[in-house]
């Protein structure tokens, strides 16, 4: 009885970890985590002024993309 509960807990824990890892992988591949990377980058430059907010970052990024199109292949 106790063992079964423990096993179920373990299993649930494992499933959650797998789901989390998949979610993170999915976010990365979609480039959904671009802002987090920007924050890390911003911190590493040691720049004095505060980083852009999430909304500002995406506006800035899309404005930049307008002038720097990335190809998509056939």
């Amino acid at each position, binding site marked *: 009885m106790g063992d079964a509960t423990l096993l179920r807990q373990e299993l649930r824990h494992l499933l959650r970890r797998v789901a989390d890892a998949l979610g993170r992988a999915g976010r*990365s591949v979609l480039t*959904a985590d671009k802002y987090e990377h920007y924050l890390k*980058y911003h911190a590493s430059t040691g720049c004095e002024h505060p980083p852009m907010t999430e909304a500002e970052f995406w506006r800035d990024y899309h404005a930049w993309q307008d002038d720097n199109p990335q190809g998509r292949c056939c």
Partner: protein
Amino acid sequence: MSTSYGPPSPGGAGEPTPAGPFTGTTTATAGDRPPAALDPEVLEREDRRWTPGKIALWVAIALVGALGWFMLAIARGEAVNAIWFVFAAVATYLIAYRFYSKFIENRLVRPDDTRATPAEYKANGKDFMPTDRRVLYGHHFAAIAGAGPLVGPVLAAQMGYLPGTIWIIVGVILAGAVQDYLVLFFSMRRGGRSLGQMAREDLGVVGGTAAIVATLAIMIIITAILALVVVNALGESPWGVFSVAMTIPIALFMGVYLRYLRPGKVMEVSVIGFALLMLAIIAGGWVAENAAWAEVFTLERTTIAWGIIIYGFVAAILPVWLLLAPRDYLSTFMKIGVIGLLAIAIVVVRPEVTAPAVDVFASRSDGPVFPGSLFPFLFVTIACGALSGFHALISSGTTPKLLEKERQARFIGYGGMLMESFVAIMALVAAVTIDRGLYFAMNSSAAVTQGTVEGAAAFVNSLGLTGVNADPAMLQATAEAVGEESVVSRTGGAPTLAVGLANILAQLFGGGGMMSFWYHFAIMFEALFILTAVDAGTRVARFMLSDSLGNVFPKFKDTSWRVGAWLTTAIMVAGWGAILYMGVTDPLGGINTLFPLFGIANQLLAAIALAVCLTIAAKRGSFQYLWIIALPLAFVTVITVYGSILKIFSPVPAVGYWAQNSAFRAAKASGAETFGTARTPEAIDAVIRNTFIQGSLSILFVVLAVIVIVTALLRTAQAFAHRGDPEHPSRHDTEDPYRPAEMYAPAGLVASPPEKELQRQWAEYHRAHPRPRRHSHG
């Protein structure tokens, strides 16, 4: 998935040129910082360490591969099962990746992990950004793989399954993946410069200019033919038109949602978008069932072509956030999801192959799907998946700016292309598991099938293929099962692939009742990629055009000049739009005459990319291993030049554009009202015009490519003549200067024990030195 990067260097100006300990691949460090590279001796020991377990593993992989190839190529009698394709392909990829790409890395590429990559020394938080190698693999794959590897193998299935399978697998190992890997590496060494810029620097003005013009022309033809595939898939299909059209409002909604409602919630909006997409497919079924609505969405192919032309123009000038970015999320979401799903489905369902290993059309040049003999036309029909020049535009310019470490180029470049090849194999499996009679009825042009089930059945049966039978009732039943008016002459590959996918996926989920859903799901999936490629391609081409025009009229260099942007966009859209319209209205059937041109264009671009790589490798002094590049370059040059010569000079009208042109001109001169498949005087004029354009394009492409190849060979010969003198101008090295790396990350998918140990040292170092303060303008 943590990105294990260290502090990006401020880049450029203040960085002293390293000397002493930094110049070799040593483990020397600045202060207490761990080394940025594994000790070469440790690396070599890892490579050479053959434990019994490792040997057993590789022997097992080799045996599985050999069994797969045996069942596909030699065993006869019983029907072949699709699972053998998976075994043969995956085992061969693994062996090629482990041994051949490693050989190329050690002998020709010689990466140096002590050297900072552009992502590190030019980091800007946008296009230059060190990116986790596993994530980058996903990005790179999503950028290179589109509808191309799904379409070519379907058309090539007319020759049987074996020629296509061999070319896809052997081609990728020796040619396609080599090209992607080398272009990626050489571009990375040059700060992520584009193929055109590399050509200009390493080949000089003439070769460079020819390369840029060829790239532009090839982009136009490729965009046009991809768009033609969509038009053919949507023609007279209210369900398809409705669901694909709905992707536009869905993407617009996603764009607005991301900008104004929930900025940055990309995963959330992608899930919502995907749900809406599924709803659009289901709603498409309701539209098709309702007579009034079906009428509204049943469009002529010419109307759809105009729709795509207008769409292409608008999409390319709209801001990225509104349409392109959100649709790209949907497209990536679908791409990774569906390809994974398909791989699982093939393994679980294990469909039986209906096509012969080698069909009679492999040794003839009058195949109904596309004309021409196996050599060279198989090799141009399957471009994407085996060797695709277009990838050079992603492998230079985009991906090299994201690599953390030089040694990762093998995993991303070579490994990424192997995955695309696997997609092509799956598309081939889908095409060779559907009924053979159905395959020919779907892929023969309406000019020969009359577009009716009776006409198609009569035509397919007249081909005299053993064991192949088409009967009108079966064709009608298939159309009904997939929820279409008709499946006859649905050329272009996409509908055939959709039927194949629907067959396989319906056996896994939903059964026969879900056939129509899966069919339209597959059509939507392909249309999504193609529309993304169309407007991204138009944007890229437009910038290339303004850049080139800017050399003559400086005003065009100003990217914020709206009139210039619209004008150049209009020129590019007019270019591919005209070819698209020509293909749609072509009395000879369109796709079967144009597709060889698509393949030739794509392969010529590959020849250009390989020629540039050859020159660069020669300048580096790697003469002993130049054959690694010379081999695929020679092959693709022979294929494309011979293919072009046939298209230009062949006296067989079905094969040669000019032979067709003069046959129709002679008919017109003799006052004929109808000729061949052209049933009106206007159709005769159309053929004369179309073959003239196609023939001229063939000449243009081959001339430009030959200029580039000859220039590259001359430069290579010059470099060879001065092989003893690395300081000679002909050996001039165009790499960015060496900068020491200040970060570390493993090279492959899984980190080896020494790599893990070094990663641990770096993690410790970063704990001890949190948030380095640097002076920079971030």
